[in-house]
């Protein structure tokens, strides 16, 4: 979404018109859902966290500085929401395997080695192993890995979302990647 359009929508929301919140929710929902699934482990809890985060964001929009980008601010609220839910007795990280690529696609490219059924199955298997590896590491490791690897945020943006100095992002990423590597080794997966 264009920053200028985003600012205009936020201005309208701040003025009390909730209709202008819908494009913002729709724009940030896919990324937010991925982050929440990675944090919570399953779609149901992720959806609850996402919903609460959007409501909290709307309720605190009056405090939002329009000169700053909306994305990192929202992801910070979402991340805190996920952590609060994990800390409470309400939700624990509960693993649900992500949707597979082979769902309904097996017959699409039978002759293509890169997109054929065998390759898709291998990728599904690799995903399942990594997903189980993620279950074994802590939420603080999971969140930084998702922000970097899946969403491609720069170190400065990650620092803003996680409320840490930019200088410690590399160190946090090293520990997270190391923890994931160790978890995979424990599961008898060799890298590379």
């Amino acid at each position, binding site marked *: 979404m264009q920053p200028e359009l985003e600012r205009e929508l936020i201005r309208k929301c701040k003025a009390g018109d*909730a209709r202008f*919140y*819908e494009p913002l*929710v*729709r724009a940030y*929902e896919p990324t937010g*859902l*991925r982050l929440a*699934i*990675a944090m919570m482990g*399953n*779609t*149901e809890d*992720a*959806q609850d966290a*996402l*919903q609460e985060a*959007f*409501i909290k964001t*709307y*309720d605190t929009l009056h405090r939002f500085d329009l000169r700053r980008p909306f994305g990192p601010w929202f992801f910070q609220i979402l991340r805190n929401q996920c952590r609060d839910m994990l800390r*409470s*007795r*309400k*939700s624990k990280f509960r693993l*649900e*395997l*992500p*949707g597979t690529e082979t769902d309904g696609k097996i017959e699409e490219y039978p002759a293509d080695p890169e997109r054929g059924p065998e390759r898709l199955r291998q*990728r599904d298997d*690799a*995903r399942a192993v*990594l*997903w189980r590896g993620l279950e074994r590491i802590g939420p603080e490791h999971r969140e930084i*890995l*998702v922000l*970097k*690897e*899946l969403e491609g945020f*720069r*170190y400065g943006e990650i620092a803003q979302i996680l409320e840490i100095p930019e200088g410690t992002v*590399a*160190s946090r*990423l*090293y520990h997270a*990647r*190391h923890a*994931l*590597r160790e978890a*995979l080794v424990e599961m008898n997966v060799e*890298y*590379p």
Partner: protein
Amino acid sequence: MNGPRVTPDDLMRYLDGELTPEERTRVDTALAASTELQREIAIYRALKADFQELSFHPAVRYTSVWDRVNARVTRPIGWLLVIAGALAWMSYGVYVFATSPTDPWEKLATGAVAIGILILFASVIWERYQEWLRDPYRDVHR
């Protein structure tokens, strides 16, 4: 290792493209001189590539949260209108009742019944609230 010293943080910033050209050259030099570092970076590259392929598709059918969010963010306006309207009607009712030519004893008796009902209603709500606070299973999902 004979090349310049490379810390794990440098390695991560190298992997993620967060180094300046000069820092990158320094790490390249260290990598060329150390098979141990080469192996290390190859492991993290493979892990990074696999992770990036891991798309977090919801495993169950997903519907947007917008409708639920919309219902919640517009709810306070509804409550505000209901409370304001109810207060206005109650004030008007009390005014009409108080200024009516009814016998004062009738007014007192009716007032006592109304206040009694309000007290009982408030005490039941308070009791339920206290029970809810003590309920050890209130956060358990069905």
